[in-house]
Every structure is written in C-alpha cells, then in structure tokens.
C-alpha cells in the first residue's frame, strides 16, 4: 500500500487549505449545483492525493487543478448526456401537441440571494445556468476565473479559435438574457 510520510500528508492538507475553496467555486459555477460541485471537488483532490509524489512544486498547480476539474466535469456531462439537450429555452410540448413556453420558477429564495439581497446577482446566476454546459464552461473560466484563451484551450482541450467563438456566443446569449438590466437600453 502506498503510504505517505507525515510531511507529505501535511503538504496535501496545505493544498486543500490553499485551493479547496477556489476549486469548489469553479466546480460550482460550472456544474451549477452543490451536489455535483462537491463530487467534482472531492474527486479532483483524490487525484491530487494519488499524484502527490509526482507533483512538481514549481509547476503551476492551480492550472493543473483547474484542468482536472474541467475534465471531470466533461466526463460528468458525457455520462449524463440528457443534461446537455435539456434547454430551458425550448418550448414544452403538451399532451395535445401544443407548445407552451416554460414558466421557470426560480429556485426560490436561495441562500446566496438572501444574503446579498441582490436581484442582479440572481439574474446573472440564472442566465449563466441556462447556458449550455459547453458555453458555460468557457465563460466561467474566462470571466469568473480570469483565464486567457490559451489557458482555456488547454484546459478544455479545444482549439483557441473555438474558445474565442464559444466565449463570444456565450456572452451574446447572456447579453440578450440580461438586456433588461442594461442601462444602454434605458432599462427600467
């Protein structure tokens, strides 16, 4: 059995202390729910633990962790293909064959919103969640995590050109969903 020395276990705990919150934040913004975010974070740190001796302390650990979480999330989506096709914008078809627009009831007064009391944040979070996972992943890495196109391309394993076009599409969708908040349009 692989046994780590006490100082190695300490090093691992230091990694948890240092990156745990941030990795959870990334997982939560990508997956959009706490259960998946918890699973992704745990799985990511299990991989870190297994690779502990191979980790180069000079390497960019944060990027590596981001890549692990991103790949775990992509795996999760592959295992759950239904999550991809379910679009909140698609009309529902009733038993009679009529199409009706979905009335999306917000998840209720969720804790984050209550604490902030912020309508704006709630709207942004909902718009973000309604994006397809492909688009959400890229826009989260870019605009929430502040990664460059090249870093995102490497993490998500897509060409830089695809990062660029997905990011633009994602922001366009968000722009139109949040149009009511844009002062440029004389929002109420």
């Amino acid at each position, binding site marked *: *059995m*692989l046994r*780590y020395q006490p100082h190695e*276990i300490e090093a*691992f*705990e230091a990694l*948890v*202390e240092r990156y*745990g*919150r941030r990795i*959870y*934040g990334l997982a*939560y*913004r990508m997956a959009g729910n*706490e259960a998946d*975010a*918890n699973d992704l*974070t*745990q799985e990511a*740190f*299990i991989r870190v*633990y*297994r690779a502990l001796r191979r980790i180069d302390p000079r390497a960019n650990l944060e990027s590596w962790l981001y890549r692990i979480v991103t790949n775990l999330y992509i795996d999760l989506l592959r295992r759950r293909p239904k999550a991809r096709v379910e679009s909140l914008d698609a009309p529902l078809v009733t038993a009679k064959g009529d199409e009706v627009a979905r009335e999306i009831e917000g998840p209720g007064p969720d804790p*984050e919103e209550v604490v*902030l009391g912020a309508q*704006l*944040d709630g709207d*942004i*979070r909902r718009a*973000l969640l309604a994006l397809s996972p492909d688009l959400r992943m890229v*826009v*989260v890495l*870019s*605009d*929430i995590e*502040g990664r*460059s*196109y090249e870093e995102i391309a490497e993490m998500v394993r897509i060409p830089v050109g695809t990062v*660029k*076009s997905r*990011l*633009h599409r994602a*922001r*366009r969708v*968000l*722009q139109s969903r*949040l149009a009511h908040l*844009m002062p*440029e349009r004389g929002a109420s």
Partner: protein
Amino acid sequence: MTHVAASQQLSAYLDGELAAGERQAVEAHLRRCAICRRDLAELRRVKTWLGALPEVEPAPGLLADLRRVASAPVGGGALLEWLRGAVRRPAVAAAAALMALLLIALPLAKGRVDRLQAANVGVEVYVREHAVLSGTDPFADPAYLGLLIGDANVALVGQRRTPEERP
C-alpha cells in the same frame, strides 16, 4: 472590416486577444458603427458582472472531507494489494500455487476414474447416477467433471448403440 466580421470579434477585442492588425480594423469599425459600440459596452458589462459574482462558499464539512482523503488508502484495489503482499511473502504465494494446481489436477484424475467406471457399469447406470448427483452435488457429478476435462463424451459416444437405440 464588415459589420458582421467586426461584431464577431468584439469579445476577443474586449479581452485583448486580437493581433494588432485585427484590433485596428475593429477599432476603425467601432468609430463608424453605433450598434457595435453599444454591443461592446454591453459585452463589457456582462464580463464585469460575471467577474463580480460573489465567491461561492463550500459547505462547512467539505474541506474537512477533503483533508480526510489523506487517510484513505491509495492505489489499486484489494486484489492488487494482496498480490503485492504475496510477492513479499513467498510462503503465501507457494501455498496459493499449490492450491491452484490441486484444483486443476483433482478433477482431472477423478474424471478419468469416473469415466473408467462409466465404461464398466454401463451408460444407463452412469446416466442415472448423473441425474441424482447433479441435483445433490453438482460439482462431484462425473458429467460435470468430464466437461472440465473435455473428452468425457468420447468414452460414452464411443460405445456401440444397442439395437433398441437405433432410430
């Protein structure tokens, strides 16, 4: 640069991810196009809003759970561990090898004895014995043991058919 081409580049322009030539072309278009200027402002706003989202706090137990990862065993499954242990303990490995040999050799020897018996007692008795044994103790059943060896049928099929059996 056309309006369509420029509007496609607005995000990359905003992020400073355009080469100098493209950037200048987009800027030239922006000076002429009010729609693109408004879009750029709104895209910038979207980016700013996302960046300003509050950090998500994990549930209190999560970090403790993560630290606990360090107390879980690492590496392959139990079998792999056992195999590794066996390499370090030659006596265990030798005993396992002997056991495996016996498991193969015993049915072989027993099957041969059974088949010789079958030839002596005749097919009917053999089949009746098989019917009884396969119910009570399938693994001791001569037919099963014969199956293990592969040529049990040869001994039976090799016998001449009695006149009644002929179609």
